[in-house]
């Protein structure tokens, strides 16, 4: 397990991640996220810089059905 986080760094992290009322459950949630993070970390090693994300901006959407 990693060393305890400096309280001021912890506060900054919570602010960066937008963690609000659930902060009292931070340890529990980090533990729950650990196995998910392992899967997400597999993505991080991929070089996808030439791949467009599948979500494509479409400026015509508000005009559909008019």
């Amino acid at each position, binding site marked *: 397990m990693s060393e305890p986080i400096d309280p001021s760094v912890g506060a900054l992290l919570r602010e960066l991640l937008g*963690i609000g009322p*659930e902060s009292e459950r931070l340890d529990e*949630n980090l533990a729950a996220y650990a196995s998910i993070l392992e899967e*997400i970390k597999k993505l991080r090693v991929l070089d*996808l810089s030439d791949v467009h994300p599948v979500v494509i901006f479409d400026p015509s959407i508000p005009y559909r059905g008019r």
Partner: protein
Amino acid sequence: MEPIDQPIETLAPALRAGKLSATELTEAALERIRLRDGAFKSFVHLNDSAMAAAIEADRDLRGGHWRGPLHGVPIAVKDNCLTADMPTTAGSMALGVAFPLVDSAVAARLRAAGAILIGKTRTHEFAWGPVCPPTRNPWDLSRIPGGSSGGSGAAVAGGLCVAALGTDTGGSIRIPASLCGIVGLKPTYGRVSRKGIVPHSWSLDHAGPMTRTVSDAAAVMATLAGYDPSDPACSDVSVPDYTSALGQSISGLRVGVCRNHFFGRNQAAVDNAIEVAIVDLAEAGASIVEFDLPNLDYGLGAILAIELASSTAYHDQALQAGRTAHYSKDVRTMVEIGRFVTAVDYLKAEQLRHVLMTDLARAFDTVDVIVGPTVPLTAWSPDADHIEIRGASESPLTASWRLSYLYNLTGSPAISLPCGFDSDGLPIGMQIAAKAFDEITVLRVAHAYERRHPWCATRPSFAPNLAFDDDRTAQRLKPMA
């Protein structure tokens, strides 16, 4: 066999010819629910207007105004699809969760087709899980029905309605279909409008039919499919006649079997049932093409990043107001941990999706469908917090999703239909997927298999009267006057 147990292709002509009434069918469904749903706990609300709708349906039928094959047929609606005449909870009892009394596009389409919306079926809270408590599996009341559309799965398998609506973000139609021994079709993303369905993850959510037979799935799909400009993701693509797929030979069709990822980590009974089904499809004239798909090892991280981030964005106001503290424990955790997904992780997941879609498109250059198991295992106990398969331990969520989420990431149509039972008598599901908007080939292969092996004719056996053990449920589902 009683009328409520008949397929739509039998019911529709009988209703149209006046040999059977919508009133009789609706009464039969309500009676079944009264007798059996104390044990299944599949419904959370019954429609007070159902009998009135049935009377009106009969009046129209007598007047020659036949609205199609669903006219007068009792169909249940998953409790995350808004309905004008029934409350929607999305499976949540949390304070501050409220939804309007308006029809979702899918409910409106069913209603316009003359279907009788019999009630709302239970979902895992906000469609966020494979368990759907406290619903039980009609094949074994000590097991789960799967989720999140577990109420719909149990209701159809238990003979409480002819068909039901489900929604599917990572497998939530196909998983309960597999575990409950019924047919569940997740159409192509954009084929069916999600307007009025409580969002889980916008780019992964689908709605579709859960039925006892493939032909019933085709009949319900014919009503659900179609363009709706009010759903930004809905596609303006012409809808074919799905029933034209039924009864067609599969001779010459290329059936793909993806040998990596989909095999080797399943219960032995599941692998065996699928291998037998593949041989059977070959005997029916299909050519079997085996291949591997690259990049599938990255898929779980991708769907988790997208689903978590999207779900947390949807629940953000509830989260900031502290209302998620009233969610059930597992769902609260999932909604809270979506905060940890970084924007970069999310976008890399959307990039990976493009890669997977390209890989799959390449595979569909050489095959017409891909077959494999729907779920690696049969229905498990609701108390299981881990699942053991061939010596490896997994969470119920990742184990149950493993074979279904690819087609949410790629938006491809995929069906689950029964293909046998394990040694405990629990159903096994086979998944058939095709390229985008090719539901008709999915239905063609599924129907060809079902005709050779009508597993759907085997139904769970029930005690004559499964009494309610939950007073609140019994009260909410009290028989209609």
